[in-house]
């Protein structure tokens, strides 16, 4: 029996890529309607964790449950309810934005009226009007990111997995995405997203999880993390650097400037 209100859960999740460790005995849970931020240095396991939650990679050991379902046993059910944006999304560049979203909508079983209304609204909201008839190959990184985001929310998912969703977005679109995540949370949509932009993480996430070497290093609200780091009143960047043990930044900069 699953505890009510738990949308995402992993138990002792471990993932090896050959001999390289991706995730190490990671246990983690996100409540329904919660916005959870994943923080961590490059290679800390954020993308691997997000992929595991959707069943895009097979864990070496451990359990992953989304909406109470085992990801390995019920991948189709979970994919129907989850929206996902990968880091640097590779879209079908030979399609136009409209064709791409049309494809996603058809695969997700949206009716003609539904897809017309939703695609039109999303294209307008994310400032792609006039460009939706061009093939994606000619889009900037930010525009591609917008199309990927649109594809992830087109079917109104119950869980949203976003890997660096604000990469390349202009300030207005980034603001739209932040408000969107906030609004979706109010409607009960659970969002797990990774980011390197700590201010944004603090602004829109209910709780934060810091990963290091494939493990959970620290978890809690921004305030709880400050207390854990012994840096009350400090910026989240200082807290992050202290918790992850990053030191000697000044020395590195000096070496680079030589």
């Amino acid at each position, binding site marked *: 029996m699953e505890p009510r209100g738990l949308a995402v859960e992993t138990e002792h999740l471990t993932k090896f890529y050959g001999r390289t460790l991706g995730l190490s005995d990671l246990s983690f849970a996100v409540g329904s309607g919660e916005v959870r931020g994943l923080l961590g240095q490059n290679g800390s396991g954020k993308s691997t964790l997000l*992929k595991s939650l*959707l*069943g*895009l*990679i*097979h864990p070496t050991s451990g359990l992953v449950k989304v909406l109470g379902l085992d990801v*390995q046993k019920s*991948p*189709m059910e979970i*994919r*129907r309810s*989850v929206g*996902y944006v*990968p880091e640097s*999304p*590779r*879209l*079908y*560049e*030979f*399609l*136009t*934005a*409209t*064709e791409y979203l*049309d*494809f*996603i*909508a*058809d*695969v*997700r*079983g949206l009716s*003609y009226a539904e*897809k*017309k209304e939703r*695609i039109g609204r999303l*294209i307008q909201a994310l400032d792609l009007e*006039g460009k*939706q*008839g*061009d*093939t*994606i*190959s*000619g*889009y900037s990184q930010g525009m591609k990111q917008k199309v990927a985001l649109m594809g992830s929310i087109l079917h109104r998912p119950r869980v949203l997995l976003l890997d660096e969703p604000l990469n390349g977005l202009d300030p207005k679109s980034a603001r739209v995405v932040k408000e969107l995540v906030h609004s979706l949370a109010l409607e009960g949509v659970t969002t797990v997203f990774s980011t390197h932009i700590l201010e944004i993480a603090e602004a829109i996430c209910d709780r934060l999880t810091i990963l290091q070497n494939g493990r959970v290093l620290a978890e809690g609200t921004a305030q709880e993390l400050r207390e854990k780091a012994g840096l009350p009143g400090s910026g989240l960047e200082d807290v992050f650097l202290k918790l992850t043990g990053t030191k000697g930044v000044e020395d590195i900069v000096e070496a680079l400037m030589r």
Partner: protein
Amino acid sequence: MRARVLLKFAKILMISRLRGTRRSFVTNSITARPVIIALIGIGLFVFGLGLGWVTISVLTSSSTDATAVAQIVFTIFGGIPIFLIGFFFSMGLLWELNASTESETTDAINWLPITPSEYVLASTLSTSYTYSPLVAVVLGYALPIGFLTGNGDAFVLLVGISLVATLIGSVGVEILRSMLARASSAFSRIGGNAMVAMRILGVVLVLVFTQALFSGFLVVRIISTLVGDIAATVAVPVFWPTLSITSLLESDLLSSAIYSLLSLGFFFVLTYIALFLRARFWITAPPSLHFSSSGSLSGISKLRWLGLSSLSVALLRRELRSATRRKEVVRLMAIPLILPVMVLFPVVFSPAPSSTTTPPVAVNPILLAGPLLFGVGLGALFLGITSIGQEGGRLWNIGSLPVGARMIAKSKILFTSIIAMIGLVLGLALAVLVFHLAILDAFVFSGLGLTVVLAESSLGIAVGSRYADFSEGPRPRFVTIAGSIIGSILGIIIMGLMSVAFVVTLLLTFRLGLSLPSILTPLPLFATAFLGLIFSRISYVISIRPIETLLGEIPN
């Protein structure tokens, strides 16, 4: 012009080609050494030397008269320059067609301080050097033939002329690349669908041309034309290298010198044109195709009347758009269209040019349809075998959607079969129009062809999903070398098994003179079709597990 930059850049381009084409079994440390190419060339030169020695030994030891030997030497020496021009042009062109769009946009020329002339010359050198082992084997072959027939001087000239022919072929590609870039942007302005259509047409024509050139029949015709009517060919610059050799073989030193100089001049003119076009028309990134200002959504497809679900139609539509719009995929789609035509080439180029008889009025339908179905089957196999790998880094799109492995396999088989059937229909139409194949026979063979296509495309998906190559280098392969070999062998075995019933029937009726009761006449047809459906089903079933594995472990 900076010679050091030029040579360094030529080396980089060559490494890029080698790693793009042979990365599966040649290590990076090997491909980084240009001297390896030269060593391979030396080895092939020795091999060619042996082959040439055997050829000339056979010719001189048999009762072949001196005139016939001279004629053979004339044909071989005359054929080499035109063959080299065609080969280097085609190889460069195929590279260009196969290069992925992503590799174009990250092309160093777009962001490094390299001048157009440095790029053109480096690329020409790179093409010439990469495929130079072919020149070595050809010259090795010609060496004993030349000296043992008293044509040593012609061989010496052939060495120089072969170099010029190689450069002509390589620089010709540079002209074409700039023109394609120019045309590409022009078509984009005209409209997306026109561009798509032109691209497919272009690829099909190029492949037909390439096949025509290398089928041997066309080269023989050209040489025959040279022998019969030299006056008609002197105005064609690509024949000048050949004419310089044939003139020398006929002891016409003045003509030989003139054609040699003209050949060299032709190369310089081509180089000038290539430099001019590159500087004038090159664009840094391929333009995005524009299809409509608003972007229209698809309604209810008519294909649903055939019982296809909206999910199947969506996947099929995506496959079709991928195949028609991705440059590196267009050529794959062209394969099943081209192969049936290619297998008819030997018939098209028969009878010999000297003959004035009309093409045969009627051809045994089995002898005509057999190669045709074989060609279509191979086409379906190759298209199927690459269809999973060509998803590349975009596989997450499908992986994150509620699409099961069975549906993916079905949509790929359906798409591959549709394209291959178009090829079969084209081939059969050609057979009906040119070789007077009976319409009824054409219908029967199209039905039989469907089962061949289903069997081969299903096999292609099964092998392609197990041996998918998702790496997207300068020239994506989409399937590993092992997968390619295994798939080809299995594909041929399956077609062989499918043809057993026909072979047995032919043996019984023609060799043993038995007449089968009329009720048994359609038996081989049904047996073959039944076998095809069984193979198709088996292949489909065994493709599910690897696709499921791929979806559960999306490659980075």
